[in-house]
């Protein structure tokens, strides 16, 4: 029992963070139909930026986060401006390749500044042991869940309510037509990349806090794929469901079955889901009408 609870909550925490990471990914896809292979590196940059402020410059947490946000926004804008805008109108797969190149580049840059070693960072989230139904849970997990939940809801609402939601989908559907109704494609692109970077930043900080500040953080980028596909590439609620599902299932598998299997189980689930629902759980069906 306690084990189950325990696994469940850790799974939730992972899932929530994954969902955050995936959210940025989905935003980019929604607006630009680009798959961003550099999402993992966005996490990395986020984590290290914060580390720099918090540990190296000894700034208070809040300031650290603010700086982080600024950096993230800048990163998003720069990437959009320098790398993706020139590619507007090119085949998606070439653009995907560019993001792959980008991931290599960012990773290398972080490495140049911080090397390959682990960096010690004092706990950001307080972590008093909380006991739930006989399981002892470190408080930081619960907080992580909370924070992720807040950020996710805020962003979700932002996109349902504000006109940017529709603007993004329009751009994704038909850039030219979007221009003719007065939507600035560039701004939408920049915005989605910036937001993606910000959500990645938060995910990165949380991740770094519950694990450690080192290059392994980037490897979470890969986990994003099963998450987004599960939920549907272009669905924000989907990412949340996807994130939580993957988080919990992997946790349970490594808890009750072969831990090594936990690495692939997300992909197995993914394939099964896709065979039943080719566009993920909430994904939008691509329209092919003649």
């Amino acid at each position, binding site marked *: 029992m306690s084990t189950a609870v325990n696994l469940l909550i850790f799974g939730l925490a992972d899932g929530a963070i994954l969902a955050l990471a995936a959210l940025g990914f989905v935003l980019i*896809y929604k607006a630009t139909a680009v*798959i961003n292979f550099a999402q993992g590196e966005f996490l990395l940059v986020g984590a290290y930026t914060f580390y720099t402020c918090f540990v190296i410059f000894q700034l208070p947490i809040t300031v650290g986060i603010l700086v982080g946000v600024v950096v993230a926004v800048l990163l998003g804008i720069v990437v959009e401006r320098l*790398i993706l805008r*020139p*590619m507007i109108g*090119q*085949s*998606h*797969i*070439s653009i995907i*390749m*560019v993001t*792959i*190149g*980008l*991931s*290599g*580049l*960012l*990773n*290398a*840059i972080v*490495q*140049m500044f911080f090397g390959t070693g682990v960096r010690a960072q004092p706990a950001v989230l307080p972590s008093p042991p909380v006991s739930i139904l006989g399981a002892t849970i470190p408080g930081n997990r619960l907080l992580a869940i909370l924070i992720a939940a807040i950020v996710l809801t805020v962003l979700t609402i932002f996109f349902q309510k504000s006109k940017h939601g529709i603007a993004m989908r329009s751009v994704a559907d038909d850039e030219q037509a979007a221009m003719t109704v007065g939507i600035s494609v560039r701004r939408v692109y920049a915005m989605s990349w910036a937001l993606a970077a910000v959500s990645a930043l938060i995910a990165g900080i949380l991740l770094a806090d519950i694990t450690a500040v080192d290059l392994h953080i980037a490897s979470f980028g*890969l986990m994003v*794929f*099963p998450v*987004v*596909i599960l939920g549907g*590439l272009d669905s924000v609620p989907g990412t949340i469901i996807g994130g939580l599902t993957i988080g919990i299932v992997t946790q349970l598998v490594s808890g009750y079955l072969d831990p*090594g*299997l936990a*690495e*692939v189980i997300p*992909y*197995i689930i*993914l*394939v099964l889901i*896709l*065979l039943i629902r*080719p*566009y*993920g759980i909430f*994904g939008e069906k*691509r329209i*092919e009408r*003649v």
Partner: protein
Amino acid sequence: MAATQTGLHHRSYASELRIWTSRAQWIRLGLLTVLLLALPWVLDNYWLSIVNTALIAVVGAIGLNILVGYTGQISLGQGGFLAVGAYTSVILADRAGLPVPLSIASAVIVTAVVGTFFGLPGLRLKGLYLAIATLASQQIILFIVRRWGWLTEGRGFVDVSRLEFLGFRIQRETFEQQWYWILLIIAILAVLVAVNLFRSGLGRSFMAVRDQDIAAAAIGVNVARAKLTAFAVSSGFVGLAGALTAHYTEVISWERFTLDVSILYLAMIIVGGLGSVAGSVYGAVFITFLPVVVRGFAEFAGGFAPFLQAQLPAFQNAVFGLVIIVFLIIEPRGLNHIWTRIKDYFGYWPFRY
């Protein structure tokens, strides 16, 4: 081959259907032949070994391009299929004692079958969803390879005995040279097969599926069948590449077939040129040589920029990433397109536009 010839008139459809038609093409072909014949004499073992790796990559890249570039089914599963080819051939050759040519042939078939199986989702999935599904197949295949003790007799890796069939044997002294000839011939055959494929109906139906699958169905193309065939043919090539890797490097373990490999191959065909056999070749060569060149450059740069010296590895990766980005921004349609433009330029030279 894509260059539009000027002042060239065909007297028969047959002549028009040839691969090399214009004088210019024959000349280029001639030069290329000379170059290829000269290589083993001018290059030392190290560079020859890189050429050999490139030749294997050519086979694999063509395979991937058939699927991604020509049929429009993005695949991140390359690494997994390479693994299938490699293990199959090795196990058949070294444990079942099959002669290597046969073991390689059966590796091709087995991989084709496996590829077709993992292609099944492609019947329902489109675009990026399929891409991720193939990513899944990569991870799953690799997991199986990793866990299935029988494959490696529990050692995690397999030694491959030196290539030897019907009296022919690779000698240690001339290792790279002998392999060069073998790989060169195979690569050329692979290119020819691919080219033939796409000047005949079957290949065209792949491209039709890529451009407009509904219309394809409406003119009588069995889309499902076309996709699966594409997966099979493509995986066949990839399996061949895998088998060659195994016999050439003489030891295999799953660590050789990770996702990075899949991505590297994707880079080859995109940088080379999607939907172009020539592009696959350029791309394979380019991506194989790039890191080597970059390292050289990095060391050189490190020479007078000591702070870089400390950062060499990171610097190398940075440059690698940067090259890919810049390259695609400048020419998203790949090396092949650049080459075509050059040829056109001289084709029309001195008259432009």
